[in-house]
């Protein structure tokens, strides 16, 4: 199983309950939580709204959805495919943001806690 990193080393230390609470209260962790939530939560609301809009249009806007765009390709088909496109784009955007903005912060906290303070 190809590019898997080695399993955690036996000397990895398990932080105590107090340490977890301390880290949770820290400004550094609050910043990580804020970066994650302020990105993931609104984006989730946005794509669910966009999906529901599509569902409602399919149900209640027959005329609009049936309008031809090119040849036999109608608005319904274009919007359906756009749901795919937006899903791919959001996934890519999240992965990029997580790698650039969230992973380094998370990694720093984890290393400090497991490495012993």
């Amino acid at each position, binding site marked *: *199983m*190809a*590019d*898997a*990193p080695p*399993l955690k080393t036996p000397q990895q230390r*398990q*932080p105590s*309950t107090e340490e*977890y*609470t301390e*880290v*949770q209260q820290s400004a550094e*962790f609050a910043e*990580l*939580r804020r970066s*994650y*939530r302020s990105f*993931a939560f609104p*984006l*989730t609301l946005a*794509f*669910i709204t966009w*999906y*529901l809009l*599509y*569902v*409602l249009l*399919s*149900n209640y806007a*027959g005329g609009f*959805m*049936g309008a031809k765009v*090119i*040849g*036999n*390709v*109608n608005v*319904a*088909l274009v919007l*359906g*495919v756009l*749901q*795919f496109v937006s*899903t*791919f784009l*959001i*996934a*890519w955007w*999240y*992965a990029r943001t*997580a*790698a650039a903005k969230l*992973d380094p912060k*998370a*990694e720093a*906290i*984890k290393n400090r*806690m*497991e490495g012993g303070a």
Partner: protein
Amino acid sequence: MSTEYVILAANEASEHRTLIISLFTAFVLATLGITVWAGRQTKDAADFYAGGRQFSGFQNGLAISGDYMSAASFLGIAGAIALSGYDGFLYSIGFLVAWLIALLLVAEPLRNSGRYTMGDVLAYRMRQRPVRTAAGVSTIIVSIFYLLAQMAGAGVLVSLLLGITSEAGKIGIVALVGVLMIMYVSIGGMKGTTWVQMVKAVLLMFGALLLTFLVLLKFNFNISDLLGTAAENSGKGDAFLEPGLKYGIDSMTKLDFVSLGIALVLGTAGLPHILIRFYTVPTAQAARKSVLWAIGLIGAFYLMTLALGFGAAALMSPKEITDSNPAGNTAAPLLALHLGGVDSTWGAILLASISAVAFATILAVVAGLTLASSSSFAHDIYANVIKRGQASEKQEMKAARWSTVFIGIVAIGLGALARDLNVAGLVALAFAVAASANLPTILYSLFWKRFTTQGALWSIYGGLVTAVGLVLFSPVVSGAATSMFPDVDFHWFPLSNPGIISIPVGFLLGWLGTLLSKEEPDKAKYAELEVRSLTGTGAH
């Protein structure tokens, strides 16, 4: 192209049948080989439940696709598009968009804080025994509904493809599928199951790619032409390419569709057999990568089902499709026969290959479902509730293997009993329960500081009972020609999909149960869960 070529005219199909059986057998032998190999490498509980957590993001993404794309999505959606046009495509969109919830909110925190099951995360900061029990009950119920739909579907489908008409033959097929899945899971554990799912995903993608290419080739890669021919051939004209043929009949069917749409998009991230796949990779980053691969593969696949469905509608008459199977479930294999050339060797080979892919699809999915339910039984209920966390690893693995056998036998029994019932609605029900009972509890557990044990119990049981209860009194079970029991009528709930009610109920009860509980939330445990879920500190 007349109906006389339909695959099920059993006499004409005998050469197809030999070929199909050989391909089935080859797949079964290959996967059993993998299973035995994986079984030898399965030494401890982390191997059995989580495949040793050593799969790469790509491998797991492939396996997730194999776990998720059931016969319902391959054959069901292609058939639905072939018969109801655009409305068949609506399913695919919900099934795909749903993955964003898994990606953004669930996969990484779950990987960081859980160990083997969904119950690990739900019970993390709660009183163990009641929450583990609830998580186990919900996991097993969701998985069994889903499993039952697949088993009964397998019986019908394989009998159709092989031209088996006797009742004993159909029961035999269900039993065969059941025995194979018991072997995959009890011997190979998560490792074996993962490899079977990867092999299946590759076969399914290649099968779909080949058919899509051949369909597009027939129409010189002119999609507008394909759509136009499909619309004309369907006898429904432009309406075939617009939403509404299936769900636009009246205000109730429209509401039903909204309800289904919500359940599809919120259900995926609460399906236990999907959630446990995130434990098979070493880190949260790898879990993220697996969801990205899964989104790419599943999205590409659903786009291809458009070509398959509209291709089937364009190249065959609606009667030919429904004569073979009224729900259109054999549209994709029939399409293969037509693309290769009816009465030609190529046609026979293509038909046999696509049928074998469908069979592989069913086997990989039922294995995943069986593993999810037996893991939850052994880890949540046996080890943590009955043995109060005192079971040894050996005992727990033994319990997992035996519960696999037990659940497999129950599934065979129920699948055989349900073989002639219309159980297609069960997959939608599994999504509705996952969205009503599991997703609210997962999200509250991970993100809401104040959430309590009582809140968790209320959202799990409340969402579960509401979803299952409403379906029990819906046209899915009684009172319509397409019901499970069409001859009786005790329905009073007008919709087939309970999500529009049961999902808000699940969220509301989790909130209310928390507000009304006398106990204080365990702040220290939440601190641990929160730090761990976001940073991976102390992750297994």
